[in-house]
């Protein structure tokens, strides 16, 4: 092997360790519940990747995770932690649902783009708040985005139990959006909707933005060294603010896609922690939008697989967070051990 190939294998090694860690933690949890660990791991893989329908579900989960993780990546590249992806997903979902109700009479070719644009705008609006506050008042975006998560969640609770509530459902669920506003399916047998293709396009667009445009160069410059960027004449505050707005728009698209592709309505539990998972994926991908495609797919498979174990061995849904965080902790530890004296 050439030195380069060795280096590439060394770079990939931690991911293998992470995968082993994920399966190991899962096996321990299943065993603790009195289940058959090896069989559970097998059924997890089958349920998420081994069948057409399962793979379709994995693709459907990949869509919001990929949108969310490239949103986080765009923020991170500008040196901003967008912890508000969940809130922005909800803001996007609210705007998308509202526009979908209004667009009932429009042909699909107009209605679907309108819904998507609304979702992006909703998310961008929520991203603009931390962006402006950071640029103007130096307020840490971490706090503002977290607080907005709570505010957005309460707003969705209000809409889904109040004015938009579906009285037949009796839960925090709104009426269904008109069929003319929903995303097409990729194939009936697979059951995946077109959202994953949009997310893929978004990941490519973020890559292009970061590495092929002046704005992307400025974003990376600001994120790597704000002082040098400022001395180089880059408007640091404005760049960070715009990055957060764009980040919010990407997360908002995730919300729109969840409404128009998957749930066909706004529900209170629309985002089962996509935002926090997106942060983990962004770190795991080393802030690279193309790596995030693979990582999102992996995390989505984990979500779908654990979901199936919930039904078969009673593994609680929250196990997926433990497994995902453990993967990252193992990776961070392996990095730390390699560099430790």
């Amino acid at each position, binding site marked *: 092997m050439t030195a380069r190939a060795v280096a590439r294998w060394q770079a990939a090694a931690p991911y293998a360790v992470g995968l082993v860690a994920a399966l190991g933690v899962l096996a321990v949890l299943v065993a603790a519940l009195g289940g058959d660990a090896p069989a559970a791991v097998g059924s997890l893989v089958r349920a998420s990747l081994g069948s057409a329908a399962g793979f379709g579900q994995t693709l459907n989960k990949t869509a919001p995770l990929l949108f969310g993780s490239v949103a986080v990546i765009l923020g991170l590249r500008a040196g901003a932690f967008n912890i508000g992806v969940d809130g922005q997903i909800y803001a996007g979902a609210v705007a998308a649902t509202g526009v979908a109700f209004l667009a009932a009479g429009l042909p699909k070719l107009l209605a679907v783009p309108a819904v998507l644009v609304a979702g992006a705008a909703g998310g961008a609006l929520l991203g603009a708040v931390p962006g402006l506050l950071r640029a103007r008042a130096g*307020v840490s975006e971490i706090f503002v985005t977290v607080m907005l998560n709570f*505010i957005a969640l309460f707003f969705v609770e209000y809409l889904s139990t109040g004015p938009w509530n579906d009285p037949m459902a009796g839960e925090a669920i709104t009426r269904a959006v008109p069929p003319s506003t929903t995303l097409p399916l990729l194939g009936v047998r697979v059951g995946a909707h077109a959202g994953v293709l949009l997310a893929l396009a978004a990941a490519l667009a973020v890559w292009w933005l970061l590495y092929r445009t002046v704005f992307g160069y400025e974003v990376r410059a600001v994120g790597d060294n704000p002082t040098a960027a400022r001395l180089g004449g880059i408007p640091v505050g404005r760049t960070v603010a715009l990055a957060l707005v764009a980040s919010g728009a990407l997360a908002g698209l995730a919300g729109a896609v969840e409404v128009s592709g998957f749930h066909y309505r706004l529900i209170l539990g629309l985002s089962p922690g996509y935002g926090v998972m997106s942060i983990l994926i962004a770190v795991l991908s080393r802030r690279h939008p193309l790596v995030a495609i693979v990582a999102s797919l992996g995390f989505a498979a984990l979500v779908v697989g654990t979901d199936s174990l919930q039904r078969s061995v009673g593994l*609680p849904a929250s196990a997926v967070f433990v497994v995902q965080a453990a993967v990252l*902790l193992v990776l961070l530890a392996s990095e730390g051990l390699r560099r430790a004296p």
Partner: protein
Amino acid sequence: MSWELLLDPSLVRLAVSMAVPLALASAGELLMERAGLLNVAIEGIVTLAAAGAFLGAFASGSAGVGLVVGAAAGAAVSRLLAHYAVAWRRDQVTVGLTLYVLCVGLASLLYRMVVGVRLTPPRVETLPPVPLPWLGDLPLVGDILFRQHALVYAAAAVVGALHGFLFHTSLGLRLRAAGENPVAADTVGVDVFGLRAWAALAGGALVGLAGAALPFTLTGTFTEGIAGGRGWIALMLVIFGRWTPLGAAAGALLFAYVEAFQFKLALLSKAVPPQFLQMLPYAFAILVLVRAYRGAEAPEALGKPYDREART
């Protein structure tokens, strides 16, 4: 609406009780930050400690056991964070967010594994009020301040002790030096690594205690969203209080007051949907943040890993 409502004794009394988790968590965070460690996992630690405390009390029947379990969980997670940050020099925000996710997942996982799915959630006893002799009999003030549960007094003692420790002992001075300028501190023989590790243990235990206080002072139950942003708000209170224990505690009282006020308002008013009232503390937090950041100066080395061999 009359102004008397704003100063209603039962409202102020509730606010004092609700300030306890905020005051304890911000005290713990402050101790860590003064040593140079940023603990962004705080919301997760509060949640995990609440679950641990609830389960400890649920299994043993004793609130004391629950409090110890909660504090131990907080100390353990924070110590782990410190190991990543200090020994392995990983980015503290990244590690903190990862641990946040781990703790939130672990909290509900443990609860579900032990308690399972039930129609009515099990309860533990909430802490009874402990009237202080003499002080408790004072008019008005006695009822608001001195007929509270034991954790109110404990939190007040912690804040006072932390102030004394940080600003009036030589160990406190050394700890602050480790957070301001670790190179200079190390040069004169301060054990930067050791101090950061101990700050993580002690600060983490306080954050854990804050989480443990939640099931025993709110409803006696554990829910996944029990922390409700209190960890994040505590993190913010440290900035609000300019990294001083007394300032952070004052902020805790202010926020607890807004929270309690929102409760009262929800009971009185039917015109405004409750969700909008529930948004109040969070919206208030954003407004306060803008002011708090004006001229705020964090410990110089906060969040930066200390590398003895690095060129500066």
